[in-house]
């Protein structure tokens, strides 16, 4: 199962305007791991994600997905292996109906007829969106859009799921539903998010980016307990690790005496 491995070595990216977005980023994610990439705005998270399926080409260093070194020739295979779910589902759902959208990837892979039908249905069932199959994307709610967006990627049976801010803009119920769904996936998973409570629930490992460099890489709980590191990277402990602000149990805030 070596094709579930993501290996990034000394990755560097400089935008055409001269901004160095990534400098010497290295990590290795193995089969079945669930990893969060966190950091302040502009730390390089999105740039890094866009490299993972070859949308941006590295200015230096290399990326290996499974047995393939990412380059022009391996791009089609890598794009099938790495399922990318974008932050705004409106960018991802561009076809007239949910069915067409979920079928878009498999059709590009050459599926048709009953096989295509089966693939689309099972992807939609997987995310609990089977009843939406005939709807137009713009008639869906935010949570539904997100789940369908995930189905569009699942239908290509990727080995690695990459998601940019998956819980962004969802109501608490839809967020909870999505977290439950993602927990069930056995793929290797890479998330970027500012929803650190979600990170705590879903990812056993966290990579912290700061100014385009890997500032820390380790078990999520350890990283979230390092207050100095979090403050330095413009981050904060997840709410579930902070004390209760109302009942007062283990509150770290000091109140003025009466």
């Amino acid at each position, binding site marked *: 199962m070596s094709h579930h491995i993501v290996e990034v070595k000394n990755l560097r990216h400089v935008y055409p305007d001269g901004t160095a977005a990534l400098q010497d980023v290295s990590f290795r994610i193995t089969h079945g791991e669930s990893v969060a990439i966190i950091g302040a705005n502009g730390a390089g998270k999105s740039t890094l994600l866009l490299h993972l399926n070859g949308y941006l080409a590295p200015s230096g260093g290399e990326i290996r997905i499974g047995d393939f070194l990412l380059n022009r020739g391996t791009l089609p295979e890598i794009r099938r292996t790495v399922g990318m779910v974008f932050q705004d589902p409106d960018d991802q759902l561009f076809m007239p109906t949910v069915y067409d959208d979920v*079928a878009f990837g498999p059709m590009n892979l050459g599926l048709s007829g009953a096989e295509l039908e089966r693939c689309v249905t099972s992807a939609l069932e997987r995310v609990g969106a089977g009843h939406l199959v005939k709807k137009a994307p713009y008639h869906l709610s935010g949570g539904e859009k997100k789940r369908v967006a995930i189905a569009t990627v699942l239908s290509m049976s990727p080995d690695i799921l990459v998601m940019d801010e998956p819980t962004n803009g969802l109501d608490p119920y839809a967020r909870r539903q999505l977290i439950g769904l993602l927990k069930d996936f056995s793929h290797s998973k890479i998330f970027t998010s500012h929803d650190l409570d979600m990170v705590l629930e879903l990812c056993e490992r966290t990579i912290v980016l700061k100014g385009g460099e890997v500032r820390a890489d380790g078990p999520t709980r350890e990283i979230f307990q390092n207050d100095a590191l979090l403050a330095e990277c413009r981050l904060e402990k997840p709410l579930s690790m902070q004390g209760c602000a109302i009942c007062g149990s283990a509150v770290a805030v000091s109140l003025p005496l009466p």
Partner: protein
Amino acid sequence: MASIDGALLDFKRLDQLAEGDTVMHRLDPRAKVLATLVFLVSVVSFGRYELSALIPFFIFPAALIGLGDLPAGYIIGKIALICPLALVIGIFNPIFDQAVLLQLGPLPVSGGWISCASIVVRAALTVSAAIILVAVTGFPAICRAMERLGMPPAFAMQLLFLYRYIFVLTEEGGRASRARELRAFGKKGRGMASYSSLLGHLLLRTWMRAERIHMAMLARGFSGAFHSREQSRFGAAELLFLAGWSILFITLRMHNGSQFIGSLVTGLLK
């Protein structure tokens, strides 16, 4: 922005109507597109003073509303929205064209009034045909039908994207315009200048979104061609539908149907 939001909701209503399952909905979209095309050409090609010959053409929208199980009130409401616009186009005709063409009892009717009425009737006919076509076919299916009828695939793709993102774009435009209004405090704000930069931003945002969509397409193996899973076929029912309507339209175009029915009735009365 209430009007834009309202118009959007109507798009959705048309989409929902297109999900119906009647004889009309099941016909191959190509047959419906072609029949509507023949209808439009027949109606538009009449002379400017023609009025009575146009009336029998209402049978097409009426029949499709019936067969397609469409809400007549809703469709008529849509057409009524367009009529004032047509009226604006024709309103000056009675002023410029005062030659009396026919005498309605003691009332002389000038050519201007007739051509004005003709414009309104034509608008009602063409708009109703277009709305009904979308309501029984659905916009994406129409695009695909046109592609299969020979329209370049790039155009079809453009139209599909337009239809998909017109909702997103209007929402974005609506938000931007609301934000401007809220800070203009009921005055003109900075007038046209603020609108031009608003439009510029909208264009840039559209550009950026287009890039992200392209990215999403590439991520799912897009290589330049849209694959279609169209299985409909042009069978006997489609041929009958197309030939039947086309013959009727061309006949009605060549001969004045109203006059014919009128003379039949008066002949019977004699």
